């Protein structure tokens, strides 16, 4: 029984163990100082010793990232609703969304910083901006992908299926049918939102995990810097896992 579950864990997580093993090996073989590259234990110790501090910073980053994600989602959703009623809006916005997909936005956080100024609100703006377009695209395509049978059914009840007069159709049919799409957008965006928040903090912030990463490095506290990086990764994975779970759970209910 125990052996079985152990081997199950191994077959699933060997990659992670391998990474940690390699890390340890790298540090011991090269006989590196903690100031150059801390070992796994040193990092975990640092995390445990400064648990309060790290928890506070992690919370800050999480709040910024999820706040930006929520705002971007709201904005994307509202504008997608408007686009649904006025298709010409989507004619202009959709190409822009596609264009933005091929731009390395995260690398341009400095510009937004310059425009919006240093501070947490900028981090929020960047995350919002980045989440906006994918949420918009996914939501709109969800609204538009209502199957023909369902549209026919609504038509046969004298319910308009487009424009302002179709708001009942929108509320009861188009909007609910976009839920899986929106969940997918969230799942894909969650790690990105965190990355953007970290990058912004790294460049300009006065707090948050991204800031700890760079601050501790300039203070020669490598274990702390790595601990922040590790914590950030763990958070990101957690974000991903949570949203994947939600996605899976609800997607099931959307299959007839």
């Amino acid at each position, binding site marked *: 029984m125990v052996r079985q579950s152990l081997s199950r864990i191994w077959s699933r997580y060997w990659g992670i163990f391998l990474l940690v093993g390699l890390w340890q090996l790298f540090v011991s073989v090269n006989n590196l100082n903690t100031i150059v590259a801390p070992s796994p234990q040193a990092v975990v110790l640092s995390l445990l010793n400064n648990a309060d501090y790290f928890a506070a910073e992690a919370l800050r980053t999480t709040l910024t990232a999820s706040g930006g994600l929520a705002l971007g989602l709201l904005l994307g959703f509202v504008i997608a609703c408007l686009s649904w009623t006025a298709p010409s809006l989507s004619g202009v916005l959709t190409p822009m969304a596609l264009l933005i997909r091929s731009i390395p936005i995260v690398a341009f956080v400095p510009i937004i910083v310059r425009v919006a100024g240093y501070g947490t609100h900028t981090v929020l703006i960047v995350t919002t901006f980045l989440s906006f377009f994918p949420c918009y695209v996914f939501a709109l395509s969800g609204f538009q992908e209502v199957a023909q049978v369902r549209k026919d059914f609504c038509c*046969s009840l004298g319910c308009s299926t487009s424009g302002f007069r179709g708001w*009942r159709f929108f509320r009861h049919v188009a909007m609910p049918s976009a839920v899986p799409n929106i969940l997918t957008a969230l799942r894909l965006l969650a790690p990105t939102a965190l990355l953007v928040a970290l990058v912004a903090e790294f460049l300009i912030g006065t707090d948050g995990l991204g800031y700890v990463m760079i601050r501790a490095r300039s203070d020669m506290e490598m274990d702390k810097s790595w601990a922040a990086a590790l914590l950030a990764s763990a958070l990101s994975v957690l974000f991903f896992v949570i949203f994947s779970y939600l996605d899976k759970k609800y997607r099931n209910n959307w299959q*007839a």
Partner: protein
Amino acid sequence: MMSNLHDVIRLEGFLSRQEVCMEAGNQSTSDIVLEGVRKRFELAKGQVIDAVEHVDLNIAGGEFIALIGPSGCGKSTLLRMVAGLETPSHGQIKIAGQTPNECIKQQKLGIAMQEHGLMPWLSAWDNIALPFRLAGLPVDIDRVHELLALVGLDEFANALPKQLSGGMKQRVSIARALALEPQVLILDEPFGALDAVTRRLMNNELQRIWSRKPTTTILVTHSVEEAVFLADRVCLMSPRPGRLALVEPITLERPRSLETMQTAEFRNLLAKLTAALDEVCMSAPAQ
């Protein structure tokens, strides 16, 4: 005394929709008139397809019509025109003197298609309540429960469509079509995806539902047996461009049952219509 009370209640608008309909008697069903109906689809590059060519048909109020014919002969197209989902290229369709579009605005139609088209995120109950919501009417809770009971699914009120079997989904779909007490019921191969046994059971159900409140019904089906079992008249369409090749009245006594299907009369009708169907299929021009 009793009738006095009734009048008072009616005057004050206290009677439910259904009761008013029952009082009004014949008004709850509508006759359908198709006059020289044609449908031509424009494909790309100026190509056209004549899906339906010249159909004349008078359907009496409360009549059950079954439409059969080879695949692609325009049955669904004809049905979609009656339901106001397509407009005829020529001719006109009148339902109780109104155009289909006027009818759907007043929620006089109920449709159920081969694909059930239920909303997967809504429970059976909510799916049946959906027509009320889409039409902007208050949900008549009793009516929804009554319909669920009518199709024998009262225990599954909270089940999502994915938790129901194919036949159950179709029953929900039919209940949904009946929700607003339509005067015309339009069914496009509602049982097409079911196995033969379930299908026969569903036919029985449909007959039971229909005979409780005879509504003008048009049913498209591929099964001649189903058509003869259910219909007052069976219309046979010829291959594209579709027109009516044969209209056969079915005078079998109602209610019809499994025994009815064993009678000579039934078998004769079945044989006759099957032969006619084979004939129009054979005479089809090469496509």
